[in-house]
């Protein structure tokens, strides 16, 4: 590949010939579009991309990408992708998963991928519902949700995907929204550049089974009121005309009103790269309506990348034992000759 070649890639190059089969209005379309628009800009030839998914509406994603794709089984995409990336570090591997796929059946692979820091880009389409199986509550559904499987309301407290990720020691933790296209694209680019596991929770509307689940941040009005765009090195300021900020009070984070000309020195200036995950964890707890909804990259730190370490051990060993041959292996240990 040469730089010129890659420069010629366009969004169209990433669209496959398969008919897109999500419900009209589904948030998945917007995410697909953002990804198809972002990948051409990464300077990699098309054949170097692989999209690995589990099962769910969201997991149909690979079929629509004109890249290599693997639609695996429910919950197991992180494991499939881990094996692939460990042996093929040259590929850029994107994992697409849903809130059920990643956090219900796939919860274990999800947390282990994060602790290992495998070089994967992970998009969790969180619609707080099981879409493909037609609307049961998911591990991110709010308590009291009435669904087919919970006619009187669900009783399980939901996971906060960001908290779960931070609890495992994740090195890159971000959140964006299906229809916030420029924001989503910028987060995707950040993820692409991160070397370890880059985890993005994408709030996604399922207009059939859980419409407006995120209207508290996606509605026109709510958006300007409740979206807190977290940016490295910038203060945590949000709301209409940036009139609110987040500071640390004696009992934890607090919202402060910032009238024109107010003193902003108390407002937390975000540092995505602190070693301890505590600050990001604290920020991730914020929820509407009491608090704004943090969006953007909450945490991005460098930690040794799993497959690089694994391959490093192999290369080192190959180097140290250059004369290892199949013959020497077969003949290792105590041998004797019969003639």
């Amino acid at each position, binding site marked *: 590949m040469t730089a010129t070649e890659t420069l010629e890639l366009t969004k169209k190059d990433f669209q*496959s010939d*398969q008919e897109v089969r999500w419900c009209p209005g589904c948030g998945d379309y917007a995410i697909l579009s953002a990804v198809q628009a972002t990948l051409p800009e990464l300077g990699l*030839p*098309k*054949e*170097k991309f*692989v999209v*690995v998914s589990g*099962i769910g509406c969201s997991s149909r994603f*690979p*079929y629509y990408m*004109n*890249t*290599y*794709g*693997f*639609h*695996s*089984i429910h919950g*197991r995409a*992180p*494991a*499939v*992708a*881990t*094996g*692939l*990336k*460990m*042996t*093929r570090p*040259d*590929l850029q591997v994107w994992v697409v998963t849903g809130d059920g796929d990643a956090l219900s059946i796939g919860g*274990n*692979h999800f947390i*282990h991928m994060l602790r290992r820091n495998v070089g994967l880009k992970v998009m969790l389409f969180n619609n707080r519902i099981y879409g493909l199986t037609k609307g049961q509550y998911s591990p991110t559904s709010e308590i009291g949700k009435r669904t087919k499987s919970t006619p009187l309301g669900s009783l399980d407290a939901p996971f906060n995907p960001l908290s779960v990720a931070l609890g495992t020691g994740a090195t890159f933790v971000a959140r964006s929204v299906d229809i916030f296209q420029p924001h989503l694209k910028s987060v995707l680019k950040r993820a692409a550049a991160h070397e370890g596991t880059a985890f993005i929770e994408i709030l996604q509307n399922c207009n059939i089974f859980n419409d407006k689940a995120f209207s508290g941040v996606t509605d026109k009005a709510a958006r300007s009121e409740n979206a807190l765009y977290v940016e490295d090195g910038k203060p945590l300021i949000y709301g209409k005309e940036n009139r609110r900020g987040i500071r640390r009070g004696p009992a934890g984070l607090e919202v402060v009103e910032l009238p024109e000309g107010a003193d902003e020195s108390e407002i937390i200036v975000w540092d995505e790269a602190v070693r301890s995950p505590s600050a990001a964890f604290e920020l991730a707890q914020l929820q509407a309506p009491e608090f704004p909804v943090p969006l953007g990259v909450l945490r991005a730190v460098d930690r040794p990348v799993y497959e690089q370490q*694994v*391959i490093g*051990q*192999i290369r080192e*060993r*190959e180097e*140290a*034992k250059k004369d*290892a*041959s*199949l*013959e020497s*292996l*077969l*003949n*290792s*240990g*105590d*041998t*004797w*000759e*019969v*003639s």
Partner: protein
Amino acid sequence: MTLPVAGQEAATPATLEKISDVVIRFAGDSGDGMQLTGSQFTNTSALLGNDLSTLPDFPAEIRAPTGTLAGVSGFQVRIADHDIHTPGDVPDVLIAMNPAALKANIADLKEGGVVIANTDEFNVRNFKKAGIETDPLEDGSLAGFRVYKADFTTMTRRTLEDTDLDTRSKDRCKNLFALGMVYWLFSRSIDTTVEWLKVKFKRKPEIAAANIKVLKAGWNFCDITQLFQVRYEVEKATLEPGVYRNIHGNSALAIGLVAASRRSGLPIFLGAYPITPASDVLHELASYKEFGVTTFQAEDEIAAVCASIGASYGGALGVTCSSGPGIALKAEAMNLALMVELPLVVCDIQRGGPSTGLPTKTEQSDLLQVMFGRNGDSPVPVLSASTPADCFDVAMEAVRIATTYMVPVVLLSDGYIANGSEPWRIPEVESLPDLRVQFHEDAENFQPYARNEETLGRPWALPGTPGLEHRVGGLEKEEGSGNISYDPDNHELMTHLRSDKVKRVAREIPDLEVHGSPDGGKLLILGWGSTLGAITGAVNDLREQGHDVSRAHMRYLNPFPSNVGEVLSRFETVLMPEMNLGQLSLLLRAEYLKDIKSYTKVQGKPFAKSELVAKALEHLG
């Protein structure tokens, strides 16, 4: 062997007697180092050129309370000056490190056999732990055996009197005292073990020195006291010429996979989760990084197999290895591999089931699980290894089939094979099969589910190849394009293709070979897997006695070799011994409608030759 009866008292110089075959069992507490002792005796004998076969047997607990029956660990080795196939039905010699070891093993000992007991441990406290009322060395219960006593512990301590070791460390050497005695008794040199101790304790020379000292003391003790009146010698076996080594089943499997990697040019990726008795395959492969081997200890068996599938997708040789309960967990993902038609080798080192079952015991009871334990019609090739060394060949063959037919292949071994060992004639590298594969690279008219006419395999097209971008997955695929298809006829076509692909394997595998009367006769003993040794021994004995008995052993359990039906039809009776409730028998009956007589043993341990002889005689009328 029959050891000549000899009084213990006499102190005349021992006479040297040649015997052709002996079975020795070392038994002691888990902490007594019996596995090590047995292995050393085995290695020394192997280097002397004996044929041999071993059977370790250890408790499921890491370390059960000392002195109890539950804590007894055993290692049986048979050495011979001729070709042998099993570690022997009954030991000739039993080394008992404590009362529990004696109690647990005495019932197996041959009538008139030899007991060598560590009298230091035969005290009231230990009798209680072992649930024994009176001293068996004194109460006459060993009347039918020849009992030799020695104070291993006292002797060991005395030997190490002038070293700085604490008592515990000293006592840990007492198995070497026993080993020294056995070396003396069987006229073997201690040198191999001395060398080995030096290497093993390179960083702890004082430990090495102490062990060597005690080993010598054991040897000298016999030499001086003339405890035994007779010494024995087992001469070299006349094996096929070549270079040999002693090998365990799991080692042979691991090495076979590395060989397949070298011969195919594909790097190995082993995704595994530890489980008895499969863990050693992971351990061993983890130490072969210089061969480009990647090992991944996954979070569970599902992740292990999925990662291996991911690796195969990327062009590596994806392998996963487990035992029964872990294989159950891999079922869904094995089906994914089957559907996306990627190579994968799944090794199942079977153990006693069902559920957690008997983790450290052996069984052949996962056959039907690996044949059918997946949703939908989902055939996969199934191979089985029948001896420790055979694992090497079967591993290479599994890789060949997986990459040729683009299919997951199951390789069955079991705890008996995995932990047992035998001499292995090391093959020349050039004689190994050529397993080179061709990745698809041509973008013109590329169809991910186009098929090779011979094998029905689809092209292996790796991500990273320009122009071959395509999608695979677990939904039904359209033949050719590989696009999702809900078309009824396509589903039927693909179902048959997946099945035919496996059937095609039969075209090029060797016919089932009959040993004995190839043209047919009264009785055929048909086996698979680790029953080989016992069956071979039994059939040899029976034929020597003039019975019309033949044997055949199946390596390919799916598909069957083409001539199996024909072979079965040539015999009046077909007897099939299995360490399960009759699993392969069921498959053969269904396929050939032949009334196979199933002979089952589900005791977590292999058939004895004598059991097979007895059963065969029943059928011979």
